[in-house]
């Protein structure tokens, strides 16, 4: 019995009109749910209100009406037409709203499950005296409902992943600023892990900045790079070489004692790269290359820094 019911459900899901029995079953079901729409929807809203007080507060009564009608009809359309485009679209919209905090995932999924309960109970009431027919109807009803719930859950997950990816990209872009400290002198503070993706992006950013700002010297500071292995070192060498092809001198600074030990121990040759201990020393070296002279001024004659207003 269950097996045949499942098979019938499968046929109706494909929207096949040749199989008469599930077709009529489905039509019956759709007609019934359409007919009792207002009653069932009312039950649903009440059930929601009972289980989740905040749900009522988060939506105005008009919004509750509107949203519940939309969800109810979207589910019914899926059941009727056998195509889930409407549900997908709706779920995506809800997921986007959830991402900006209008509606939480728990609340929305909870609402869908409550709706399923309401449908289930009403079917139970309707077919109380015909358990076999009830079983057949469930065979049509359950797969559709399950599919809709999967669509909803997936929409939320996809949306979260999209937001996550967006944030990762933003962090990546922000993580390697190329800063101009003087005319023709850039600094590139590198912080965090360097993988080949990030190294390529970093090099690209640096080269474009060199071209745009006409830099002659770049101070590359790796104080914030925790671990330098041969791969990372090779990425750094590539970045330096690429910058050099554009006619820019790169000064590497911030090689910690531990990093220095590692580099020499693993036998990476950084001797072609000009290195200075810390960022200050690097900028001083760059100043010498560019013929800048920084002179400590006469404190009286120096232009006053505007005093903070008390």
């Amino acid at each position, binding site marked *: 019995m269950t097996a045949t019911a499942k098979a019938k459900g499968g046929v109706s899901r494909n929207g096949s009109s040749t199989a008469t029995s599930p077709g009529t079953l489905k039509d019956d079901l759709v007609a019934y749910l359409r007919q009792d729409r207002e009653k069932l929807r009312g039950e649903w809203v009440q059930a929601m209100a009972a289980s989740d007080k905040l749900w009522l507060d988060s939506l105005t009564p008009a919004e509750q009406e509107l949203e519940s009608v939309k969800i109810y009809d979207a589910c019914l359309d899926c059941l009727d037409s056998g195509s889930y485009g409407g549900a997908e679209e709706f779920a995506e919209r809800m997921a986007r709203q959830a991402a900006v905090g209008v509606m939480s995932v728990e609340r929305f999924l909870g609402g869908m499950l409550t709706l399923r309960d309401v449908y289930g109970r009403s079917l139970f009431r309707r077919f109380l005296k015909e358990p076999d027919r009830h079983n057949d109807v469930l065979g049509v009803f359950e797969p559709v409902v399950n599919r809709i719930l999967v669509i909803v859950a997936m929409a939320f997950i996809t949306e979260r992943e999209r937001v996550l990816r967006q944030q990762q990209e933003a962090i990546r872009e922000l993580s390697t600023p190329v800063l101009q400290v003087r005319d023709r002198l850039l600094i590139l503070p590198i912080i965090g892990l360097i993988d080949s993706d990030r190294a*390529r992006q970093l*090099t*690209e950013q640096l*080269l*474009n900045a*060199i*071209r745009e700002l*006409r*830099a*002659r010297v770049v101070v590359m500071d790796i104080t914030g790079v925790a671990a330098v292995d041969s791969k990372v070192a090779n990425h750094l060498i*590539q970045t330096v*070489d*690429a*910058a*050099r*092809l*554009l*006619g*820019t*001198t790169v000064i590497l600074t911030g090689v910690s004692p531990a990093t220095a030990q590692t580099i020499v121990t693993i036998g990476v040759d950084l001797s*072609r790269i000009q290195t200075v201990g810390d960022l200050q020393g690097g900028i001083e070296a760059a100043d010498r290359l560019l013929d800048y002279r920084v002179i400590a001024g006469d404190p009286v004659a120096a232009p006053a820094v505007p005093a903070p207003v008390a």
Partner: protein
Amino acid sequence: MPVPILAQAPYLIASVQSALTDADLIGLQNGLLDEAERRRCRGVVVDVTALDVMDSFSTRTLQSLAAMLRLRGVETVIAGIQPNVAMAMVQLGLTMPDVRTALDLDEGLAYLQARPHGSAGRGQ
């Protein structure tokens, strides 16, 4: 297309206009060596701004060109390598360690002018 060589005493400027065939490169090498001798120039700028590809042959030819000119006391500057060309070259390992590079023609000439007279140096 052969590369035009412009004289801007005491320097020579070779301005590459389009993709170079191997024959063009050899022609450029011969032309620059001859001109450098004839005009007793002190420096050469090869402007490759227009190139969007630098392969191993052109890189090697430019490198040996710089080495040959250095033997005559002429400093060579390769100017105007594009950022994406530089990326590709580095990935192919074509880093031209012994050749002086500059951002563009302006920078290349400025470097040659700032350089003390006398023997040519070895890159950076």
